[in-house]
């Protein structure tokens, strides 16, 4: 079946602009995760959804970052007033129920802030 998909694959934006990153999880997966991969910080957790609720937002680096999930499916990560340090690859993953289920990753969105 289809895997996790993310769009866009690449996004170049100017400092101060807002961006939206989209994740389509595997159908039927109730758990959804956002991670960020950058040269300096490696792979770091951002936020976890179970259904449409986000019980853990502890990894969001600042209040410029927000995320939502609708219909228990698609998720959008929004970064307001982008800064150069936001440049990274943003990875989305989904798993069947959360817990110890395997997390399946999408190909990522490469964000470049000029």
């Amino acid at each position, binding site marked *: 079946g289809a895997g996790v998909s993310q769009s866009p694959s690449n996004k170049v934006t100017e400092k101060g602009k807002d961006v939206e990153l989209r994740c389509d999880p595997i159908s039927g997966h109730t758990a959804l995760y956002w991670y960020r991969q950058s040269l300096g910080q490696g*792979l770091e957790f951002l936020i976890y959804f179970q259904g449409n609720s986000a019980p*853990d937002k502890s990894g969001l680096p600042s209040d410029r970052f927000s995320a939502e999930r609708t219909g228990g499916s698609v998720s959008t990560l929004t970064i307001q007033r982008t800064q150069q340090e936001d440049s990274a690859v943003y990875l989305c993953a989904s798993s069947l129920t959360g817990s110890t289920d*395997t997390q399946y990753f999408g*190909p990522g969105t490469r964000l470049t802030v000029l």
Partner: protein
Amino acid sequence: AQSVTQLDSQVPVFEEAPVELRCNYSSSVSVYLFWYVQYPNQGLQLLLKYLSGSTLVKGINGFEAEFNKSQTSFHLRKPSVHISDTAEYFCAVLSGGSNYKLTFGKGTLLTVNP
């Protein structure tokens, strides 16, 4: 708090040689361990995971790992590597509790030379 240390940032080897990628973890709760592989410009793919039971775990592409509780290690091994194994390898520990997020090591770049 949980953490993962990958002791080698880069490992160059010749084709058909054996390889071991080292991973040590710290965790105050139940331990669930994973190895993921990332090929250039792609997302993360699960190689293998340890949840419980046998400490020797076999994964895809001929890789295996051994969970060693006393040494808090989860080293990845392959007896004979191929050019196509060139990629970055990430060790991760899964937290329990309310979010089941993955905490990743910094990664090991495996380069297989002819």
